[in-house]
């Protein structure tokens, strides 16, 4: 059985149907991407999974039904969201932000090890650990948001547009880290507008179009698909 199983997920804002019933499945240890154009409903899928918006359909995570659970309870079950726009705590220090990531954890010793690991992954954060997070650059804030999610030691990490608004070099650095943590066994659902990048690093992918899944399959196959090429890869 898959770690995450989503059946017929629907999200609507008033009369606008952002997600019109999609199915998803993610196995333990997989890096799966969800790509699509602006407004295709990708972020709404993540919000639905995390319980941030009212949704229909069924979400099963590690065998348990998540429907109707509040966000904090879903987080406690081991799902971590790196929200669009990063959602860092601007007026807390870098160290305090990372500390908040481990809010639900009780294993203080292991938390300290994970903190060292985050600082190893992002030496920049270690240098700036006492600095207010709001004064970090965009790339550093994205690193902090990723690091904070790692601190939660989640069973599934949801990444919402980690490349958004960042310089290409910084994006490359962030993606190198995503690949690193995935190769260490993390399970990741990666939502991206930058389809090229997402298909390069992921094993499987879903292509969303106006609220529905238009295509799914191995990332290599998707990258070679003429429709995907035309619509998202600019070829």
């Amino acid at each position: 059985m898959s770690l995450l199983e989503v059946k017929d997920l629907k999200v609507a804002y008033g009369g606008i149907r952002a997600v019109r019933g999609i199915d998803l499945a993610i196995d333990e240890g997989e890096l799966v991407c969800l790509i699509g154009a602006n407004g295709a409903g990708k972020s709404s899928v993540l919000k639905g999974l995390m319980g941030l918006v009212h949704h229909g359909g069924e979400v099963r995570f590690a065998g348990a039904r998540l429907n109707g659970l509040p966000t904090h309870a879903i987080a406690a079950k081991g799902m971590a969201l790196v929200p669009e726009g990063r959602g860092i705590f601007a007026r807390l220090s870098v160290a305090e932000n990372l500390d908040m990531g481990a809010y639900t954890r009780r294993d203080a010793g292991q938390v300290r090890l994970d903190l060292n690991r985050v600082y190893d992954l992002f030496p920049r954060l270690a240098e700036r650990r006492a600095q207010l997070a709001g004064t970090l650059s965009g790339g550093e804030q994205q690193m902090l948001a990723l690091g904070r999610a790692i601190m939660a030691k989640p069973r599934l990490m949801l990444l919402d547009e980690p490349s958004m608004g960042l310089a290409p070099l910084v994006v490359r650095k962030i993606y190198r880290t995503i690949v690193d943590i995935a190769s260490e066994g993390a399970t990741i659902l990666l939502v991206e507008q930058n389809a090229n990048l997402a298909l390069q690093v992921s094993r499987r992918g879903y292509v969303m179009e106006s609220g529905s899944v238009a295509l799914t399959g191995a990332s290599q196959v998707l990258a070679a698909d003429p429709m995907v090429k035309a619509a998202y890869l600019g070829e």
Partner: protein
Amino acid sequence: MPNVPEWLRRHPRLAFGLLAVLLAVLPFIVGAGLGRGWVRVLDFALLYAMLALGLNIVVGYAGLLDLGYIAFYALGAYLFAWLSSPQFGLHLPFWLVLPSGALLAGGFGVLLGAPTLRLRGDYLAIVTLGFGEIVRIFMNNLDAPVNITNGPQGINLIDPISIGGVSLGVRHTILGVHVFPPTFYYYLFLFFTLFTILVAMRLQDSRIGRAWAAIREDEVAAAAMGIDTRSVKLLAFAMGASFGGLAGGLFAAFQGFISPESFNLMESVMILCMIVLGGMGNIPGVILGAVLLTVLPEALRYLGAWQRATLGHVVVDPNDLRMLLFGLAMVAMMLFRPAGLLPSRQRKREFRAEDGVAGQEAASLYDAQA
């Protein structure tokens, strides 16, 4: 001359001891030097310190702008009046009434918090402002059909606090020295203020304190970290309100008389100003703000006498001057010390770091290249 602050910093125990001695003898020094009226001012400074610390939990820690905080003070005061005055013929002991007042106010804190959970910033401020006015207007009008609050006349002859059969409301002679009620209340209020400080400090460093800081910064991210934002926010409202209720009970016993006009919007604004002036989120700053804004208006009263002595008549009423200087002080503060007189470490960093971002952006780009 030796550097006194530096010397105190190096001997924290001694500094603490000196402070304790100073606080212990303060009412006698003030009473002898400035007159007994000033001991009352000290008492009010302590009451406002308690209120400001309570409101600081809601505004400073959890970031929920509450403009109706005085309502909780009113609820505590009225409960004290109902349970120990001739109004209903009840005369319950203070150790029962004070906690009940705190509990009642805390309950109303949740009552205010629950429907406003989704509101933030300006919207929350407007709703809480309305709440404060509703409570005051209820107190003003609940004298008919059944007389509960005695309306605008207020409730009189409230029992003073008495400990072990000794009333704090009358003069006692201890070792040949006359000690007056404000001095007794000073020690009582000092005790409760220290208690409030202790709780506020513990809360700030606790798991709850960290959760408040997180929802203050970003509520969605906080929920995604596993923080139950609903209950944590309600807890902030309840904790803040309880201290308001406690201070209200003390106020009623101390004054012996309460009426709705003591609990108007201006009072809520004043307490908020104490926090902003002193340094939001920082306990010593909040206390400093409360003391300054209680003592300075009183000191301004001397200006009336001074005008009469030098000019023969009062040209500017000190009361008007008070609001003018108050406004000027606020403007000056926003210009020169926007984070407050004694800002918290965090806010100090925040105001210092504002222009460093562009340089860092370049630096981190450089890093990515490396």
